[in-house]
């Protein structure tokens, strides 16, 4: 989820930024990104210049829709749990 949410407000985000924000290492994040890229949620761009190799991530339209669906589903679950708790309180 955080790997998909971080690129959401941007066009491209640097791999290192996602790694630092999530608090993981290169290897673990690479595996997650590869899985997301295979699913079509994330696009990976690798470039090379005089400072070295750089990897950037972009959320695809499909990934953006999946993130929105996921967030909406979580909101509905939380809202339903809130109504259930309120119902129990009234019953007492």
């Amino acid at each position, binding site marked *: *989820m*955080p790997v998909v*949410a*971080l*690129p*959401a*407000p*941007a*066009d*491209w*985000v*640097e791999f*290192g*930024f996602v790694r630092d*924000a999530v608090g993981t290492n290169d290897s673990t994040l690479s595996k997650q990104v590869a899985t997301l890229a295979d699913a079509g949620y994330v696009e990976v761009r690798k470039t090379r*210049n005089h*400072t070295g190799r750089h990897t*950037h991530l972009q959320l695809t339209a499909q990934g953006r829709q999946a*993130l*929105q*669906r996921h*967030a*909406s589903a*979580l*909101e509905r679950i*939380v809202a339903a749990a*809130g109504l259930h*708790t309120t119902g129990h309180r009234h019953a007492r």
Partner: protein
Amino acid sequence: MRRPHSTHVHQRRERSRAENVRHASSGAYGLIAALVVFAVGSSNDLPSPWSLVARLVGGGLIVGGLVVQCRQARVHKKTSVAGALFSLSVAAVVIAVLVASLIVACLVHLPIPSVPAAAVAAVATWVATYATRPVVERVARRDDQGCWTGRR
């Protein structure tokens, strides 16, 4: 009631936005912008060829600053219409400060009026880098909400 997962989505997006704003409004680039304003603004009273040199230095700083800013950004986002309009309005304010300072410098009969006027405008530019950060954050948040159609 706590909403852990949707809050985490919001927090992650906020982190990306904050990084974008922090980089775009950093003091280093504000200093470069101030130097550009000083170089170009003070070039009017300089004798040839130094006026041309000053303008070329200003142009070089603009290009170099933009290239470095783009390369070093960890979060890349295209400038929105609102963001471009805001930048233009800040530039208009800086030009107004430069013109007003030049008028004052001429009125008090300073020997090379464009230099102190450019210095005042340069300071105003550097101050604007910090003073406009809350507005830049608000514009970035509004742009992101325009792209995000899910509920928070």
